[in-house]
């Protein structure tokens, strides 16, 4: 199931919240969350529930193994068993097809590529569980004795399939003791509605316009402007889509008393690539920082070793995003810029007006998304060439111009949505509201109306998605 579906919004979520608020004890509430999470997860493919349970089981056992042993060697052994177990499962389900296709291109073997449907959310919950066990190993938290609590932690439907990657220590206390007050409930409502609207009204439209501008079966015929514009829409889409899921997760967390950390901080407002990555998918970058980069030696080693460490981190970051060469290229693309920035570029940028760094970052990230978008390397090349009219394509076309005009206000809306503009506006209104009652009431009215309006608009958009004229052809 996905958050942005009518079934989720108008059946699953209301039912879950209904039973949740109906029950009083924390135990009952956890049971309800767990049951709903399992249903949620099973909805995509019931078989993969077993995988989730198995993965949790490994980590639950190993964490207890670590925790109940004082001897360092034994603890380490448990950790190694755990990591091998988790990464093997992840490897089989996510990377086996990719690995075998690489192997085949060199050796001609195996003849058949093993194609396993990727279990939804596996990359997210595997990392959550690994972080849990390592934290236990590092004595930062005690191991949880109750299996179902660990299962709830990893499988909680709020964040199980699209992040953020939650640390156990951030929610450990809240799993066993949490309260909801009206302030947080209301914030959760707004956050969820904003996320839903970002996904259904903005991200989905971006995707539609991208398809219109860059039809994948005739990329070489696209005008250069269509490609630039199309990639701009993709750049909007990927942020709006991804952060929308985090917004909804954080919002639903607040409704039920959980506090997940922010996962995005307006990444497109960063002023260097380094800054971008401090703001983009924060829970993933901190995972790699804490569990890969720092253990490898981090910054406290020679320059050469540091660069090597960064290489490992960005290779893995790329690979985490998907089992295909282009994702690794994408990771290494950022590796190059991050190293350049570390070596001298940040110093140079700090001497220039902020705008330079900002524009430079946007250009790098923009091209990064092209690498990210096209798994087919040949197609990626066609896109790059086409952007500079090197496919014999025209610079612009009537069609491109038409689409641009048709979406000109939408583009402005997207720019507003990827910047903290509305957030700052709200802050300003609050400030004025603290002095003038009229403004306070006005702002409060907006706060009341906005989530419902966004919900209704999202419902319209979701119904519109099911609009498929001429769906069934005559063959």
């Amino acid at each position, binding site marked *: 199931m996905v958050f942005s579906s009518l079934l989720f919004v108008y059946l699953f979520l209301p039912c879950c919240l209904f039973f949740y608020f109906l029950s009083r004890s924390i135990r009952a509430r956890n049971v309800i969350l767990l049951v709903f999470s399992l249903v949620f997860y099973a909805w995509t493919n*019931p078989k993969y529930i077993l995988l989730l349970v198995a993965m949790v089981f490994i980590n639950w056992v190993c964490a207890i193994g670590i925790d109940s042993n004082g001897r360092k060697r034994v603890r380490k052994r448990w950790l190694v068993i755990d990591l091998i177990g988790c990464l093997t499962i992840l490897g089989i389900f996510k990377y086996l097809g990719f690995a075998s296709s690489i192997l085949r291109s060199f050796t001609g073997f195996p003849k058949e590529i093993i194609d396993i449907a990727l279990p939804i959310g596996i990359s997210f919950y595997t990392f959550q569980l690994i972080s849990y066990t390592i934290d236990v190993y590092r004595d930062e938290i005690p191991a949880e004795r109750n299996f179902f609590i660990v299962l709830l932690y990893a499988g909680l439907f709020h964040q199980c399939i699209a992040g953020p990657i939650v640390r156990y220590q951030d929610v450990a206390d809240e799993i066993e003791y949490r309260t909801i007050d009206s302030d947080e409930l209301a914030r959760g409502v707004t956050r969820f509605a904003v996320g839903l609207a970002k996904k259904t009204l903005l991200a989905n439209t971006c995707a539609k316009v991208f398809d219109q501008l860059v039809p994948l079966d005739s990329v070489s015929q696209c005008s250069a402007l269509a490609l630039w514009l199309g990639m701009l829409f993709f750049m909007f889409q990927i942020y709006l889509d991804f952060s929308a899921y985090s917004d909804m997760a954080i919002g639903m967390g607040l409704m039920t008393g959980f506090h997940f950390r922010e996962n995005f901080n307006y990444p497109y407002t960063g002023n260097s690539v380094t800054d971008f990555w401090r703001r983009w998918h924060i829970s993933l970058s901190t995972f790699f920082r804490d569990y890969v980069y720092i253990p490898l030696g981090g910054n406290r080693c020679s320059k050469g070793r540091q660069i090597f460490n960064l290489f490992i981190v960005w290779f893995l970051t790329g690979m985490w995003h998907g089992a295909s060469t282009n994702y690794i290229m994408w990771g290494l693309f950022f590796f190059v810029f991050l190293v350049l920035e570390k070596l001298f570029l940040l110093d140079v940028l700090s001497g220039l007006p902020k705008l330079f760094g900002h524009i430079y970052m946007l250009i790098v990230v923009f091209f990064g998304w092209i690498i990210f978008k096209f798994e087919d390397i040949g197609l990626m090349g066609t896109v790059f060439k086409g952007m500079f009219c090197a496919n014999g394509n025209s610079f612009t076309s009537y069609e491109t111009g038409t689409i641009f005009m*048709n979406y000109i206000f939408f583009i402005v809306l997207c720019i507003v949505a990827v910047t903290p503009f509305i957030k700052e506006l709200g802050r300003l209104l609050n400030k004025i509201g603290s*002095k003038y009652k009229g403004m306070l009431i006005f702002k409060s009215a907006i706060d009341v109306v906005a989530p419902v309006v966004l919900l209704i608009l999202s419902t319209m958009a979701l119904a519109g998605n099911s609009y498929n004229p001429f769906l069934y052809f005559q063959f």
Partner: protein
Amino acid sequence: MKKRERRRIIERAEIIRSAVFFFVLALGAVIALIIPLHPTTSEIEKRDLAKFPSFSLTSFLDGTYFKDIDTWYSDTFPFRESLISANSALQSFNGIGSVQIHGTVKKGDEIPTDNEGKIATLQELPSVEESSSAEATTTTPSSSEEENVNLPTQKLGPVFVAGNAGYELYSFGKEMSEQYAAVINYAADELDGIADVYDIIIPNSTGVVLPENIRKDIGTSDQKEAMSYIFSVMSSKVKKVNIYDVLKEHKNEYIYFRTDHHWTQLGAYYAYTEYCKARGLTAKPIDFYEKQEYPGFLGSFYADSGKAPELAATPDTVEAYCPKATNDMVYVDKNGNEVKWNIVSDVSGWGTSTKYSAFIGGDNPLVKIKNPELSDGSACVVIKESYGNAFVPFLVDHYENVYVLDYRYYKGKLKDFVTENKVKDVIYINNIMATGTSLRINDLIRITK
């Protein structure tokens, strides 16, 4: 303002915010649980909406059961038509410009100006595949209104919406066009000495009505040139009826619908006058026929453009001209049953999207019309897709027997039909999109060869 008062206002607003939101959420959930509110068909989309899946262990285990529930729930969400219309109204705030393009325009092949003496012959066609750009047109499926939503429909090519009218964009494909000509050539050879073969290609509104500079800008192929080329590779045995110029002459009249890809019956009338010239008949004047009007028609462009509000604002009117001799016909449906029907039906009570089915009961494999005023044994057969429907009524007053084969659905062979029914005039009539679509050409080959 005191701090306490401020706090009170804020807190109250927060409680109201959550309460209102959860109320709407719950309301939506309750409404959606009322099963009778779930629609089952969509008239405008011409399809059955998703059905609640039946349970099976396999579909449960591989996740398709749940996925189908998901689809069912959103596809049949209560009030979806209103929600969709509201959504498309909302979408119009995305930008400016009274023109939109739905779908992707593909560059057509260059149209040769000289056929270099070539006459098209049937080639081994590449296996049937859906060619998305030239994907044909057509069809308002069957006769009765209920059937109309149930029958499969085809996808339009890219649609250009300017002002309150849609235009289906055409790209010339050399190989396909030559194959089209080749099928007609084949039929003319086969029927040589048995019957005359006429070919009519119908340009669509893009080629006739849309100003040339816009056509150039969009990059759609020139239909006049394409038609000339296709006719040029047809053999001398084929009697070609070129209706481009006559339609162009009347381009300011109501010869094409604005919200639907078909031509109007007035457009078909001008084609009929050209056919009469080629066949040596005297065309009846237009006021010879009794005219019916069925307003409130929103056709395929409306559906395909995602219910563009510009189109909805000005619906089309189906203007129908009844033949004098008779308004009775018989059609054979897809199951082989004969059904009595009217040549021009009263569709005033029908759904907004189905009104083009006023003519000869929509698309059926075979239609038979007998003119009670003639007994000269004259007979013609029209091999058509849905554009032909509006054309057929004009033939009725000239022949004792008019037969209509919808080549997409008719399963027999043309030659057998012609010899059995002593047909002398064989009229192939196709809209220009069909002449470039492999599916249609394969259908034509199936019925002809």
